[in-house]
């Protein structure tokens, strides 16, 4: 497939935007590192409430990890198709990414409601407050990512790949891969290290 060449100006804008977005991702990383530090300090302060060993469902956490990892992989493939301007394939792969992200969010919300219904909400102890803040912040990022992905899918569907839509999709894919990297640490530090 032949591709339109981008002008010097468009290439310049692309590099500036992706670098700017990368700087945002790194500051987000600092935000998460503060939440991880809080969790690491408070995870044994259960105040008579349940400990991490009693409430974590390790197989559900593994399922969440797998779904998010596959979603991240699909997003990468979609980006590969986008760089070759294969619109339909890119849209299908982005759709799969979206659905996997949505199922990840559903599993996480299921886990949260289950905990709250049993009386183990963020009010119960310092451990649960830090747990909900850390995992919830990641969930909030996923939610924003899904809304953004919906917008990008719509733009690509109606306008095809222009320098603008391609640039937006590049930033989105950076965001999505970044959230998967954060989840590796949540899975390791919170679920694996907190399990029996």
């Amino acid at each position, binding site marked *: 497939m032949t*591709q*339109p*060449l*981008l*002008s*010097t100006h468009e*290439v310049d804008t*692309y*590099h500036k935007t992706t*670098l700017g977005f*990368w*700087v945002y991702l*790194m*500051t987000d*990383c*600092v935000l998460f*590192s*503060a939440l*991880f*530090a*809080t969790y*690491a*300090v408070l995870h044994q302060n259960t105040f008579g409430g349940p400990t991490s060993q009693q409430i974590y469902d*390790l197989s559900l956490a*593994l399922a969440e*990890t*797998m779904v998010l*990892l*596959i979603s*991240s*992989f699909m997003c*990468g*493939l979609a*980006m*590969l198709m*986008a*760089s*070759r*301007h294969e619109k339909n394939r890119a849209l299908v792969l982005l759709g799969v990414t979206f659905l996997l992200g949505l199922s990840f969010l559903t599993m996480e919300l299921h886990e949260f409601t289950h905990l709250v219904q049993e009386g183990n909400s963020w009010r119960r102890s310092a451990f649960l407050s830090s747990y909900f803040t850390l995992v919830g912040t990641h969930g909030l990022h996923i939610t924003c990512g899904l809304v953004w992905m919906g917008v990008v899918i719509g733009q690509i569907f109606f306008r095809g*790949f222009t320098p603008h839509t*391609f640039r937006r999709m*590049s930033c989105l894919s*950076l965001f999505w*891969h*970044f959230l*998967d*990297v954060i989840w*590796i*640490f949540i*899975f*390791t*530090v919170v679920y*694996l*290290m907190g*399990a*029996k």
Partner: protein
Amino acid sequence: MNKENTTTLWHGTLKEYIVGFVLSLLLTLIAYFIVKEHLLKGLLLFSTLGGLGVVQAVIQVFLFLHLGKESKPKWGVVVFLFMLMVLIIIVGGSLWIMQSLDSRLMR
């Protein structure tokens, strides 16, 4: 004129994505089975899990996020290294201070 098309703007290749995906999958499953089957205990368990997590993160940062593939000057790498420094100070510093406080206050 410095004209490019989008294939040269995006650095990913199919091989990189597949290798990154398979390695991440393996590392996740290894870590899961170590915990599920109670293969290790204590400090060894924590350092192994931490190590596996860091290796997986490094793999994804290079193969999925394409760190360091940009043309010079590599500002992305500079910002990344700065973030690492802040991260180590925040996490390491918090744990160190709180642990030392804990041992002084609780006998």
